[in-house]
């Protein structure tokens, strides 16, 4: 074991990155390590950097062991498990000074792997596995489990927990369980015998994960749709949203099949494209079912025409946009928040839409339910703007909870009895002075019949080309958006509220912002933080903006879309809003936020004076 360079107390505070070849089964080994650490009571995050490919290209998985429970990407790598010879050069470069690189020394690469400031650990993984197992595919898969064993020894991860996890996975397949357990032990024993275990970067038991789960946002959102009572899901496969519908379908198969009859209380329709997917959602919602579609940026582009119809004809629908890197096809397996403007004003003509911004999988669950309530209450499309980082990565979240007293808010839908009591039903009249009119469902009463159309209509629901009649409806829609601002989730405020400097952000930036705030605190810079959860912005956003002189808008796109939306939709002066942007496609770290704020403070003497 070479000398350890620079080893402060890094117990439960380091990053392990796995460099793999995709399609080799490495994902299960990596999540095995992550889950074992989680079960030791130590907070972790797992981030997957994968190619848009099925087999053969480089893929990375990053586990951040974080005793302070930070949710963001750390932005450094302490231990690299370099299992892909093709990417050795860049993997070696990425290791932080003082860190470690573990590689398969069956084929020694001493020249390639040389770096004076890191420790290179060779483990003859292929040899160990090939000596004990047969079959090419089997050996590839089990080599992954073997390095998990090595890592367990090096990091002092309880091997019994990993064995437990293996039993849960392969309990019903004793042969597989046996070979996996054996491979794990091979890697573990080799490390214990030949390497100095544990490393200074190691795991020690804590009690910070009880009452928590590790879940990805798409699974949580799909589960939310089940609890919201959604019965129709229509979709067209697109990364990174596909697993949302997979989750919904999986949960429905578990919870929504009548045990007596075998009948399904749901319908999942794989549409021919996103144009049809949103059409089906509009048709089903119009007909009184809770319906939704998960998609990503390119899908939203295609859905624009129908979104405008749903807005103008006032049909509820729920759209999950799991954002990925644009423009165009962009980088389908990388994350971004670059559909904010696209969704806020989707479709031609004057349209504005309700947006929800979950920050983590937990919020994906609750906001899925809120989205349906809002869509039906407001009779309009509601977008849930998640992203690839939230949607596809495993996050540590508090247990999801449910109140059985919940009942869906179906909004203003007239029953046959209510219709019988009316002289005549008019679809778009503002009877309650809240700009939300009453709707009816087909099949209930001939008295409720009306004609739904995207062409010009008056408040009585009939076709019109009369300017005044057209404007009555369009003006009410504008007032309805003001009503929406009262119903959408309120922003979350962190800090005393009296600081001169503030951060405003959305969605998955939250982890990086919170971590940055801690770093800034240590540098005696105090900031207030407002996390916006929805559009339209309510009074809380407006007053927060007006109460702060210098506001940093943190978001993950190139064009400062949130900042643009704030300048368009609030009274704030543009000059007070400083952008901090991250659009690399990798989840944001706290570094650009810390650097951005410190940089502006250094240039503005008056502001730096407020450092206390």
């Amino acid at each position, binding site marked *: 074991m070479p000398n350890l360079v620079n080893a402060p107390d890094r117990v439960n505070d380091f990053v392990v990155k796995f460099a793999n070849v995709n399609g080799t089964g490495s994902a299960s080994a990596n999540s095995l390590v992550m*889950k074992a650490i989680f079960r030791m009571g130590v907070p972790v995050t797992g981030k997957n950097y994968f190619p848009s490919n099925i087999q053969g290209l480089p893929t990375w998985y990053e586990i951040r062991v974080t005793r302070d429970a930070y949710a963001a990407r750390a932005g450094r790598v302490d231990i690299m498990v370099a299992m892909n010879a093709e990417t050795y050069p860049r993997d070696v470069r990425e290791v932080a000074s003082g860190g470690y690189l573990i590689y398969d020394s069956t084929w020694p690469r001493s020249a390639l792997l040389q770096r004076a400031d890191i420790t290179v650990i060779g483990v003859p993984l292929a040899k160990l596995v090939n000596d004990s197992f047969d079959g090419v595919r089997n050996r590839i898969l089990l080599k992954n489990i073997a390095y998990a064993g090595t890592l367990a020894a090096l990091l002092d991860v309880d091997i019994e927990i990993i064995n437990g996890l293996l039993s849960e996975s392969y309990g019903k397949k004793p042969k597989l369980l046996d070979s996996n357990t054996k491979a794990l032990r091979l890697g573990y024993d080799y490390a214990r015998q030949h390497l100095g275990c544990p490393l200074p970067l190691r795991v020690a038991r804590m009690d910070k994960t009880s009452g*928590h*789960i*590790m879940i990805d946002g798409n699974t949580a959102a799909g*589960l939310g749709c*089940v*609890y919201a*009572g959604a019965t*129709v899901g*229509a979709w067209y496969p697109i990364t990174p949203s596909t697993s949302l519908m997979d989750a919904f379908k999986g949960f429905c198969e*578990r*919870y929504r099949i*009548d045990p007596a*009859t*075998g*009948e*399904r*209380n*749901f*319908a999942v*329709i794989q*549409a*021919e*494209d996103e144009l*049809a*997917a949103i*059409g*089906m959602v*509009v*048709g*089903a*919602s*119009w*007909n*009184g*079912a809770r*319906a939704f579609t998960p998609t990503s940026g390119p899908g939203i582009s295609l859905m624009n*025409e129908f979104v405008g*119809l749903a807005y103008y004809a006032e049909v509820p629908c729920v759209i999950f946009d799991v954002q990925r890197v644009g423009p165009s096809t962009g980088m389908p397996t990388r994350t971004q928040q670059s559909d904010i403007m696209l969704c806020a004003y989707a479709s031609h003509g004057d349209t504005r839409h309700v947006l929800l911004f979950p920050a983590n999988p937990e919020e994906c669950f609750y906001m899925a339910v809120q989205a349906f309530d809002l869509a039906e209450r407001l009779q309009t499309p509601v977008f849930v703007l998640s992203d690839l980082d939230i949607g596809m990565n495993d996050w540590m979240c508090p*247990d*999801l*909870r*449910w*109140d*059985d007293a919940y*009942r869906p808010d179906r909004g203003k839908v007239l029953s046959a009895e209510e219709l019988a009591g009316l002289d005549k039903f008019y679809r778009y009249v503002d009877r309650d002075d809240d700009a939300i009119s009453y709707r*009816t*469902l*087909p*099949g*209930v*009463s*001939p008295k*409720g*019949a009306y*004609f*739904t*159309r*995207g062409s010009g209509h008056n408040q009585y629901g009939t*076709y019109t080309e009369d300017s005044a009649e057209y404007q009555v409806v369009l003006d009410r829609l504008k007032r309805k958006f003001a009503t929406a601002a009262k119903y959408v989730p309120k922003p979350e405020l962190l800090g005393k509220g009296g600081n001169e400097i503030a951060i405003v952000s959305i969605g998955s930036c939250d982890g990086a912002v919170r971590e940055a705030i801690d770093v800034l605190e240590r540098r005696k810079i105090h900031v207030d933080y407002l996390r916006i959860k929805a559009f339209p912005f309510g009074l809380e956003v407006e007053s927060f903006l007006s109460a702060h002189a210098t506001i940093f808008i943190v978001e993950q796109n190139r064009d400062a879309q949130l900042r643009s939306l704030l300048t368009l939709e609030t009274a704030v002066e543009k000059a007070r809003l400083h952008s901090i942007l991250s659009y690399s496609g990798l989840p944001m770290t706290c570094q650009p936020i810390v650097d951005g704020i410190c940089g502006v403070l250094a240039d503005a003497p008056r502001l730096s004076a407020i450092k206390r």
Partner: protein
Amino acid sequence: MSFINKPKVGHPSLPTNALGLTRRQYEGSMSTLCAGCGHDSVTAAIIEACWGLDMRPEMLVKLSGIGCSSKTTSYFVSGAHGFNSVHGRMPSIASGANAANRELTYVGVSGDGDSLSIGLGQLVHAIRRNVNMLYVIENNGVYGLTKGQFSASADVGTKAKRGDVNQSPPIDPVLLALSLGATFVARSFSGDKAQLVPLMQAGMRHRGFAIIDVLSPCVTFNDHEGSTKSYIFTREHYHAAMEADFVAHAEPITVDYPQGESIPVELHDGSRVVLRKLGASYDPTDAAAAYNFIEGKLKQNEYVTGLIHINEAGSTEFHAGNNSSAVPLNRIPYEKLSPGRAALEKLMGRYR
């Protein structure tokens, strides 16, 4: 187009159906189409078909896309909900609406532009999905609302009013539907109400996707010499291969059909459509034979009308394939949809 509003009340002696409703009560708002438009005759046939089926108006859902034909859904059954969607996208609205409530009768009215150009993808996939609906194409070979451009159903060599000659081969919705495995395929002519009404009734009762291609001449842009979608051309070249009589299940079959020349097909709800062969060796239950027959006739410039193909027993409509709840999805009580708190607590164990 008529400028006189229809009176709301009818003469007391007007005949009523089993629900006590007159034909007038199945009408809609005033048509705004050109005088003599074939589409208005199709509208009249839909009214007659619904009246004859004793359909409760609120149990009908009328769907359309964009175009002259798509406007017609507001001209019939004002007691039914209507959805005039976006251009070429009615099938997806129908698919979603049908998914939400399997109990209603869905009638889509579209045109050749709406169905065969911008909406071809959606039409094709609605057929594949076997959405339980009647899909009527009012086919006139031109775009009316944008003033006479060729549609994808225009025949090669057909002449536009302004003199252009169409070069591209047509898409024939009947051959298209047959090749996709549609289980109810018919062709008719807007001027032949006697043929059209029973076809529509059978199409509404067919459990699955029923498509009727209705030649419906455009008097303004495509009724001149050199057009193959004009009234004159249609009268000369459209011939029934098959006559269909729709027999509601309550009625006994009273007419004596000659043995071997009539084919009674029982529909899922117990009603029947009795097909009477006009040509010699034509079997409408054999899709491949039907395809060859229709294609051969088209080559001779002959358009075969009638119920060209039916396969009631072999039709698995969307909900049957999905094994959907018999109670429409939009009426299942929330208590049955939510797994509840206890299930969620248990589920959390999977994520630790």
